């Protein structure tokens, strides 16, 4: 229904190109799905010599895998929460007040995402070493938070800039104190931005390899575990199983986020 309002129909060439692009992006993922079922241990032969579900059972029993997965989930969760709080506060400060060094702070916040991860990683490692801070769960979280904060900050700041500034004044004018104003006016306005920023931060943290290698010490997060699996060809199908589950799990929040932001942009589109 909606596509009718967008100009003439696409040509066959364009349709084919679009299809080709989508296949190029998604066929490799399907290949991973396919080879979770192969009875071969080390090679990718096609067609599959047979079908087996044994790798799922093997993956389930791998203690190191579960440890890596839990660690990754925990790190991503804590880094995301920290990013949500710090990113929102920073965005609010930069949006609402005009203090000395505002532009500099804004720049410094965005810098970690522009810097190559290897630079951030080395810098963090040197700093941690210099202060004699032992590697731990928290050093991984700090490393991830450097780039997670930016994502939330950018999203929330963009939303603040789109929000009518007088809404906050209107709320205070009608008798709401700062806390009530945040709860009833600011939060609903930035909620979808927080959701989008939070999910992106979670995803970034969940698959981060480079910075983590510098700040993790002996701990292994899931991406590092997968990475290290490459050197063990015998476990390849197990790695495929893990990859598939990671994809299925991330599919749910991405799908929900899309639905949510589609709804909110519909209502915004109706104004004027």
């Amino acid at each position: 229904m909606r596509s009718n309002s967008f100009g003439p129909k696409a040509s066959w060439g364009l349709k084919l190109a679009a299809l080709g692009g989508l296949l190029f992006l998604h066929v490799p993922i399907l290949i991973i799905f396919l080879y979770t079922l192969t009875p071969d241990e080390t090679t990718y032969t096609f067609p599959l010599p047979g079908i087996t579900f044994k790798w799922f059972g093997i993956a389930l029993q791998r203690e190191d895998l579960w440890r890596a997965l839990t660690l990754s989930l925990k790190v991503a969760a804590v880094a995301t929460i920290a990013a949500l709080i710090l990113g929102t506060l920073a965005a609010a400060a930069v949006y609402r007040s005009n203090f000395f060094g505002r532009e500099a702070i804004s720049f410094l916040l965005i810098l970690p995402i522009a810097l190559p991860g290897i630079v951030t990683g080395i810098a963090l490692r040197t700093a941690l070493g210099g202060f004699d801070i032992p590697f731990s769960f928290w050093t991984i979280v700090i490393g991830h938070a450097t780039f997670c904060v930016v994502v939330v900050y950018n999203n929330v700041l963009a939303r603040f800039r789109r929000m009518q500034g007088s809404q906050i004044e209107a709320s205070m004018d009608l008798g709401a104190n700062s806390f009530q104003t945040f709860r009833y006016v600011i939060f609903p306005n930035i909620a979808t931005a927080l959701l989008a920023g939070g999910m992106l931060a979670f995803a970034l943290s969940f698959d981060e390899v480079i910075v983590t290698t510098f700040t993790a010490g002996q701990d292994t997060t899931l991406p590092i575990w997968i990475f290290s699996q490459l050197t063990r060809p015998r476990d390849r199908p197990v790695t495929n199983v893990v990859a598939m589950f990671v994809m299925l799990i991330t599919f749910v929040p991405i799908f929900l986020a899309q639905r949510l932001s589609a709804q909110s942009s519909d209502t915004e589109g109706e104004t004027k």
Partner: protein
Amino acid sequence: MSNSPTPAIRFNQVSRYFGDVKAVDQVNLEVRDGEFFSMLGPSGSGKTTCLRMIAGFDRPTSGQIFLYGQDVSSLPPYERDVNTVFQDYALFPHMNVADNIAYGLMVKKVNKSERMRRADEMLELVRLTGFGKRKPSQLSGGQRQRVALARALVNHPKVLLLDEPLGALDLKLRQQMQVELKSIQQRVGITFIFVTHDQEEALTMSDRIAVFNEGKISQVGTPAEIYERPASPFVAGFVGTSNLIGGEVAKRLTGSDKMFSIRPEKIHLGNVNSQPEAGMVSLDGAVRDVVYLGLFTRYLVETEGGIDLMVVEQNLKTTSMDVLSVKGQKVRLFWHKDHINPVGG
């Protein structure tokens, strides 16, 4: 006016500086209980800053603001019994109309059924009964305006502040809302302080007007006082159109070379042989330009002192079709001495 000796709002030597800019400069002001008071002035004259200081969004650099006798200068907005209708309405886009209106009650922890009852009451007051479930984005500009008004009135504030609320509406809707605002004000009996740069709007609606210029108040008075007896060249020029006459010509006409103002509609156009009646003064000139405007005609007359005067005459006579033919002719202008208004300076 003497039913309440305490003014609704009193400014005592209020100043607000932004760096070197004196946005508001030592303003003294009294707004009476229950009146429709307008702050009129060009942009940057300090009227909006005054309004924001009453609301609590801004604080005076020096001086005090009293709300019914209580010094509110340093109170935050949510502790002042004052509500605002914003220029851009500032409705909450994520709430429906009823929740927007009931917001002030919700944050004061009034229970839900009471809130909805009073929101309905307000919707009826602004003639939007049945619109409670809609989102602000589904309303027209005029309807949003009414919701903003209802939301600001639901708390029964002591003073309602309106910041150029009609600015975004088209002319017809604006005129309709002017009448409606005035009638709502009379029904609820709340003191309204209305900020505008539109002199016609201020003249139509207000009990009294304060004319702002460069951070100071030039004049406070009823619409008729402001219009008929402008106290300064600025007021004479900003409110309506005025002719200003000074120097030699003023001396010959009034006996003093002090500047005076005369409204275009008070001047009569006569032929060069007619003599002034008792109490009238006259000035000769030539018609340089004629603009026919249907209801009336505007003449630009170049007079002997080199001063251009604007004259407005209603098109009452059947000969008004010929008004354009007077262009270039010599004329004699007459006006009553009573209409001469010294403006100082």
